C-alpha cells in the first residue's frame, strides 16, 4: 500500500509543486502497468471526522484532524508487486513523493 502524504499545502490546501497533469500521468502509468488493486484520492481535510471510543464505551466524535500535523494523508494506492524494490520505484514515481511530500510504503499483512 502506498500512503501518499501531502507536503506543503498552498492556500487552497492543494499540494505545492505538483500539477494535476503530473498526477494524471502517474495514474495512467501505474494503471497501465496492471499493478493497481485499488486507489483513492481522499477528500479535503476539512471533511475529516475523528471517532474515539473510551474504555467505558462512550463514543466521542470530533472534527479533525487538522493540517497542523506535518503529514496529511491525501490518498492511497494498493498495488500488487513482487517485492519492496518495485514498490519503492512506484513510490518514487508518484508526484506525492515530491515537493516536501512523502509516500509511505506499507506491506499488506498476509493472513
Amino acid at each position, binding site marked *: 500500500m502506498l500512503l501518499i502524504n501531502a507536503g506543503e499545502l498552498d492556500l487552497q490546501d492543494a499540494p505545492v509543486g505538483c500539477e494535476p497533469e503530473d498526477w494524471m500521468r502517474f495514474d495512467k502509468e501505474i494503471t497501465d502497468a496492471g499493478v493497481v488493486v485499488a486507489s483513492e484520492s481522499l477528500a479535503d481535510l476539512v471533511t475529516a471526522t475523528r471517532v474515539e471510543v473510551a474504555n467505558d464505551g462512550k463514543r466521542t466524535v470530533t472534527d479533525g484532524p487538522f493540517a497542523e500535523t506535518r503529514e496529511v494523508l491525501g490518498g492511497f494506492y494498493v498495488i500488487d508487486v*513482487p*517485492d*519492496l*524494490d518495485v514498490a*519503492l520505484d512506484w513510490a518514487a514515481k508518484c508526484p506525492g513523493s515530491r515537493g516536501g511530500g512523502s509516500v509511505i*510504503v506499507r*506491506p499488506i*499483512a498476509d493472513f
Partner: protein
Amino acid sequence: MDQVEAVFREERGRLLAALARRFGDLDLAEEVTSEAIETALLRWPVDGVPANPGGWLMTTARRRAVDRLRRDQVYAAKLAILQIEAERPAPQAAGDELPDERLQLFFTCAHPALAPEDRGALTLRCLAGLTTPEVARAFLVPTATMAKRIVRAKKKIREARIPFRVPDAAELPERLPGVLQVIYSVFTEGYAASAGPYLQRLDLAEDAVRLARILHRLLPAEREVTGLLALMLLIHARRDARSGPDGGIVLLEDQDRGHWDDELIAEGRDLVVRALTGGVAGPYAVQAAINAVHDEAADFAGTDWPQIVALYDVLLELDPSPVVALNRAAAVAMRDGAEAGLALLDTLADDPRLRDYHPYALARADLLERLGRLPEATEAYERALALAGSEPERAQARDRLARMRAY
C-alpha cells in the same frame, strides 16, 4: 566460533546466500546452513571429506529445509517448490564450487529500507560469518539487544519483501555506496574504536578487509570497490606501528615505518592504480591515493604534502563534508604551516557535525600548541579529553595536558 567452524566461515556465507535467495527466507536459510555445517563437522572426520564439499553442504542443507517445511503448514506452497529442488543434483560448477550468490546478500543486508545500524550487524552476521554474540561485541551492545535487532531486521526483510537481488546497472550507482559504507564503517570502528580499552580492534578491521575482498572478487570492475579495498589495506598496513607497547597512540610522525606491512602496501598500491584508471575517480579511490602517498614516504619528513593537499582538494569536490575539510586543513598545516591550517579550522568551528568530534578538537589543540598559544591550546586539549572515546585517546589527551602545564 571455534577453530573448525572458522574454516567454514567463507563456505557459510556462500551457502547462506544461495539458500536465502532460493527460499526468500533468511531465518530458514540460516538454520539449515548451520545444521548442514554441524553435520559436516560430525561426518567428514569419519567418512572423509566429499569430492565436492560445497555441493555436499548444499544438498544436505536443502534436504534439511524440506524436512523442516514438512513440519510447518505455513510453508506448504514453498515445500512443493523445494521438493523439486531437493531432488535435483547439486550444481557442479567449475572447480567444484557453488555459484557465488553472496552479492545479492550484500545488497539485501545493506538495503536502504533497513535501519542503518542494522545493516552492519546483518552484514557481519550473514557475510562475515560472525555469531550474534560476536556481532554484539563488535557494536558494543549486550547480546540480547543485538539478538533483538537482528530478529527485527530479518522480520523486515521477510515481511516487507526486501528482495535478494543484485540491482541492475541503472540502480547500481545509487545502491553500491550503501554497501561500501557498511563495510567501511565496520573498518573505521576497528581502526579507531569509539569506546573501550584499546585504540584498535584488529578483529573488526580484519572482518571488514575480508568483506571487501569478497565484494572485490564479486565486482572486480567496480572501481569504488577496488578503491575501498585499497584504502583499507593501505591503512591496515600501519596497524602494528599505531600502538605503542603500552597500548598508547603512536602518531604517524612517530611511527616506526619498519613495522608497516609491506605486502599489504604493495597490494594496496596496485589496487589504487586500478581504482584511479578509466575515468573520474570516486571518493574511496582518492582516499586510497592519499594513504598511498603516506605509505610511500620513507619517513614523515619525506611526505609529499603538496600532493596530499591536491588530493584532498579533489576529495572535497566529490565529498564536501566537514570531516574531509578537517583532514584537508591538517594537510595544509603541514604544507604551509600551522597558521594556515588553523585559519581553515576556524572556518569550520561553527559546523554542528564537528562540535563534538574528537579529531577536530585534537587537531585544533595541536596547531594552537605549535603556534605557542598555550592557554587556548590547553582549553582545546580539555575539549579533546572530554570527547575522547577509547581509553588510549583519553590517555593521549591527558599526556598533552600534562605537557601544557610543563611549559
